[in-house]
């Protein structure tokens, strides 16, 4: 079965203004609920799942959903057509989900989880710690770079988990726990910088990049220079703000002895698997980077690549793969699936057209200032709520414009990633950073985080706008 075709192309049917505003209110309510996720103690998947249920019900009730108008045996249901021309019933919400994105996230997370069992990431992290010789300035720089690279190649949450936990352990060992807050904050902010580096580094990149047709290599070459500059600036600002200084000569020997006590080989259970995982990881990145021009693979797309590598490496644990399935972040996957359903209903209810209209009138009409304004507004929006709904919505809206300028896509990519650095709830990785801070009893309230992070975020956003205007446009 290919080219799933909805029973009726009902996406552009007439919808009353009242209905559109009702669904817009539901969308706002969902975004507010997601922003208050921590307060209402509900997981993202449940929030969006409930809204998806409500939207589908109301969408069907108001006749917005693409059910077959009939006549015939499939009247009133949704269907797709297979290669033989047969009509097959299909739940109306299934085609609304971007399965490519789901496949990339599921495959990548499984693959990265198994690779991490090889000890590769902890090996790299400890090696860098030893290279620093326990010098706090070097530690900050190396951990910062490691955060960016891990965020880019794994995902920002895993990067923060690895670097954050290592930071806590190593600074405690070095008797430098006074620096922990500053280190964790800088690392948390750098996860969102690293999240900009490649097409698969963050979910907004995947959603927007896929919608815009940006290839992996192109994405890397456009985002790379900015990531490099923003990383250096953020580390330098962090060192100054948190007074991370070089050690006195008489402190160096002891610091070196303490970090030399780390054994990078401790987490490696099998060197055979370690090297296999390393080779597969390199091959994984290479294949993702070249998906768009590798014969056969280019037809199967990145989701196939991610799942294929996941299954290949799972052979190592062939009798206990269920352990890894259990560890998959089902909350995240169900969140995406239900979010796509909500966005799909919103599209049918003309809510996205409504927002697109507002955007065209107030932002896109600004001419040269449109992309900077979109970047800044995307950053502000994603600082208080999840950047994924924003990216998904904006991808649809910009995709619906007539020949959208390339810098608009990039404005959303930069804005939705960098907005996560303004508040502690702006991105999943800053939430992890705050979790580590709380675990180590560091005083960090919402307001204090914002107070500490805003100067960094402002500089990063200004840099991004300048980069966008000077080089991308």
């Amino acid at each position, binding site marked *: 079965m290919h080219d799933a075709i909805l029973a009726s192309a009902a996406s552009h049917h007439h919808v009353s203004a009242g209905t559109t505003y009702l669904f817009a209110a539901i969308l706002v309510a969902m975004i507010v609920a997601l922003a208050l996720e921590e307060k209402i103690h509900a997981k993202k998947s449940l929030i969006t799942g409930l809204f998806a249920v409500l939207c589908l019900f109301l969408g069907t009730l108001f006749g917005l959903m693409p059910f077959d108008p009939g006549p015939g045996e499939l009247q009133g249901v949704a269907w797709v057509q297979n290669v033989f021309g047969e009509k097959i019933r299909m739940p109306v919400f299934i085609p609304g989900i971007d399965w490519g994105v789901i496949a990339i996230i599921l495959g990548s997370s499984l693959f990265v989880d198994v690779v991490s069992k090889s*000890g590769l990431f*902890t090996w790299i*992290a*400890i090696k860098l710690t030893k290279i620093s010789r326990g010098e706090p300035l070097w530690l900050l720089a190396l951990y910062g770079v490691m955060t960016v690279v891990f965020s880019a190649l794994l995902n920002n949450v*895993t990067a923060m*988990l*690895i670097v*954050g*936990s*290592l930071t*806590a*352990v*190593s600074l405690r*060992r070095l008797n430098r726990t006074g620096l922990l807050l500053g280190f964790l904050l800088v690392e948390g902010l750098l996860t969102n910088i690293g999240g900009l580096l490649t097409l698969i580094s963050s979910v907004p990149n995947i959603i927007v990049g896929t919608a815009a047709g940006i290839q992996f290599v192109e994405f890397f070459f456009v985002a790379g220079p900015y990531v490099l500059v923003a990383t250096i600036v953020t580390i330098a600002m962090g060192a100054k703000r948190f007074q991370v200084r070089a050690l006195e000569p008489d402190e160096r020997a002891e610091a070196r*002895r303490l970090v*030399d*006590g*780390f*054994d*990078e080989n*401790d*987490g490696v259970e099998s060197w055979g698997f370690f090297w296999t995982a390393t080779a597969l990881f390199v091959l994984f990145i290479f294949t993702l980077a070249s998906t768009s021009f590798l014969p056969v693979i280019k037809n199967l797309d990145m989701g196939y690549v991610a799942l294929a590598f996941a299954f290949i490496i799972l052979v190592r644990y062939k009798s206990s793969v269920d352990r890894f399935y259990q560890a998959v972040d089902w909350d995240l996957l169900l969140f995406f699936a239900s979010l796509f359903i909500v966005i799909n209903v919103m599209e049918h209810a003309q809510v996205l057209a409504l927002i697109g209209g507002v955007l065209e009138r107030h932002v896109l009409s600004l001419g040269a200032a449109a992309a900077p304004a979109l970047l800044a507004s995307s950053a502000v929006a994603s600082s208080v709520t999840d950047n994924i709904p924003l990216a998904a919505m904006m991808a649809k809206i910009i995709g619906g414009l007539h020949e959208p300028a390339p810098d608009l896509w990039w404005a959303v990519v930069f804005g939705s990633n960098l907005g996560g650095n303004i508040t502690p709830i702006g991105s999943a990785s800053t939430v*992890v950073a705050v*979790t*580590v801070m709380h*675990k180590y009893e560091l005083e960090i309230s919402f307001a204090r985080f914002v107070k500490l992070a805003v100067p960094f975020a402002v500089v990063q956003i200004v840099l991004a706008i300048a980069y966008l205007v000077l080089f991308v446009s």
Partner: protein
Amino acid sequence: MSKLDQFESAFKSAAKEQYRYSAVTLAKILVVTDLDESDSMRFCDDVKAFLDAVQIKDGAKWVAHHTTPDGDVGDLLGVVEREQPDLICSYRNLHGRARHYPFSLGAHIDVLTQATSTPVLLLPPPTDEGRLDPSCRRTQGVLILTDHLQGSDSMIDYGAHFATATGRLVLAHLEDDGTFERYMGVIGKIASIDTEDARVAIAKQLLKEPADYMESVRVVLDKTIPELSIATEVAMGHRVQDCVRLIEANDIELVVVNTKDEDQLAMHGLAYPLAIELRAVPLLML
């Protein structure tokens, strides 16, 4: 188990205790007996011969002190305060009638080991002729019962210092299986913990940490005192019974234990039963 906890555990496991060698010097050694003066001097000479390895290295000054039946522990502490020795050599139940009953150390030794920071070498009781037990000939085989979490560096330093030039150090860590089984019994009643996984993982980690520490000892001593041969034993077992087994299997002539416990005034939990029961083997108590 959260992923944060998983990574944190991995890094904590990788952060290993490393042995740091510090040279030991024994400039003055005090031998305390409850013998008369002449026997005390002779006993002192016997101890000096037994500790020939130390004498060669340090050329220590030896002081023999014989306590009197009417002298109390306070007097003995006064002598220690005055002489400021680097090592005190004595035996159990000074002036006590319970010397042949293996149930206590006697008040003098109890207090000496805890009230002073000076290491105490606990010797077998003197023979009826007031001589050092003839089984104490040299310190070729030294057993160090490491407690890698507390004071182990010092135990290794002393053990290496007391061993003869071509001696043999046996580094042992015995994880008490009784305690382990008690915790496993509790874990077995908690539905959210997989008992078998817990048993394997906890036992592995309990034994891995001392093994890692011993490896760091081996690396350092191979460089600093290459003539010493080093053997290691890390196992689950009964701390006293298996210690006796190790002593017999390795021809051990001196056992080094840590007696100080930061959380209490009394002797370290492992040291006391060993000091009570290992009456025939010299025990260096740090």
